[in-house]
């Protein structure tokens, strides 16, 4: 399976994400934000965490208009898989590939700790855990307070597109939402960092199953 990881000025989880994909057996190519094409045969695009363009204007807003985003949109339109983590989730909402927006945390603090998550929406990303399972993943963000209007939230819940929910919201997110899926369930945006929980040395390996299942399923396909 081939993964492409977008790199913006200020991305800082790009190499962690590459390590997680490689550990799961994927070929990984890093793609600079000025590139206008993805490597041929890309199965999944990773949009990494960090502070793209210094979080100027709004988190993810400048990155969402970078040259490489045209290729990302084409990939998603073809039914390609996309995984946006933390700043990557913010970029995906700014591009409109996922609904809603991420506001400043309700208590204004940058939060860096491990949180409990309930796995919900069925998808290739969540399948390894199974619906209803509780896992733990680290979060590290200042703007992770998920917001969407009530109709959008109802639609997401009605269609089973809430992939992960906080067992106890750390940041004020509407309906405790930590990650959501696109309509075709192939684009996932999530604030927690599965790539930071992939190796026993990181103290937690709950994230590894996500990458292992993705790699297995996409290689078989």
């Amino acid at each position, binding site marked *: 399976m081939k993964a492409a990881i977008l790199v913006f000025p200020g991305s800082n989880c790009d190499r962690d994400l590459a390590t997680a994909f490689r550990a799961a057996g994927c070929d990984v190519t890093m793609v600079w934000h000025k590139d206008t094409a993805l490597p041929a045969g890309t199965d999944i695009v990773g949009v990494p965490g960090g502070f793209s363009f210094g979080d100027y204007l709004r988190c993810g807003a400048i990155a969402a208009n970078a040259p490489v985003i045209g290729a990302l949109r084409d990939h998603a339109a073809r039914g390609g898989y996309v995984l946006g983590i933390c700043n990557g989730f913010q970029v995906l909402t*700014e591009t409109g590939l996922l609904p809603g927006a991420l*506001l400043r945390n309700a208590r*204004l603090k940058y939060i860096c700790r491990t949180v409990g998550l309930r796995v919900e929406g069925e998808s290739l990303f969540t399948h390894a855990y199974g619906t209803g399972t509780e896992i733990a993943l680290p979060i590290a963000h200042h703007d992770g307070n998920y*917001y*969407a209007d009530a109709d959008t939230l109802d639609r997401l819940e009605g269609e089973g597109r809430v992939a992960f929910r906080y067992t106890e919201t750390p940041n004020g997110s509407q309906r405790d939402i930590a990650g959501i899926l696109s309509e075709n369930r192939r684009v996932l945006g999530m604030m927690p960092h599965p790539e930071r929980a992939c190796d026993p040395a990181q103290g937690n390996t709950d994230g590894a199953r996500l990458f292992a299942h993705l790699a297995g399923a996409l290689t078989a396909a």
Partner: protein
Amino acid sequence: MKARVEIMLKTGVLDPQGEAVRHALGALGFDGVGGVRQGKVIELELPDGTTEATVADMCEKLLANTVIESYRIEMA
């Protein structure tokens, strides 16, 4: 010519920074401040003849996130 764009969180979207400012005002003894909303102002230097519609396009595409923000344009 210049344009001035004022961007605010939409009504109903929680503004935690505004709330923090309101609390701080209360702590300084300014009682009775019912609400504080914090936004941003962007000043643009533009070629003469730029229309408000062009600035609105800039707001829709980049300057504001219309999921959570509203904008107001003043052409000068």
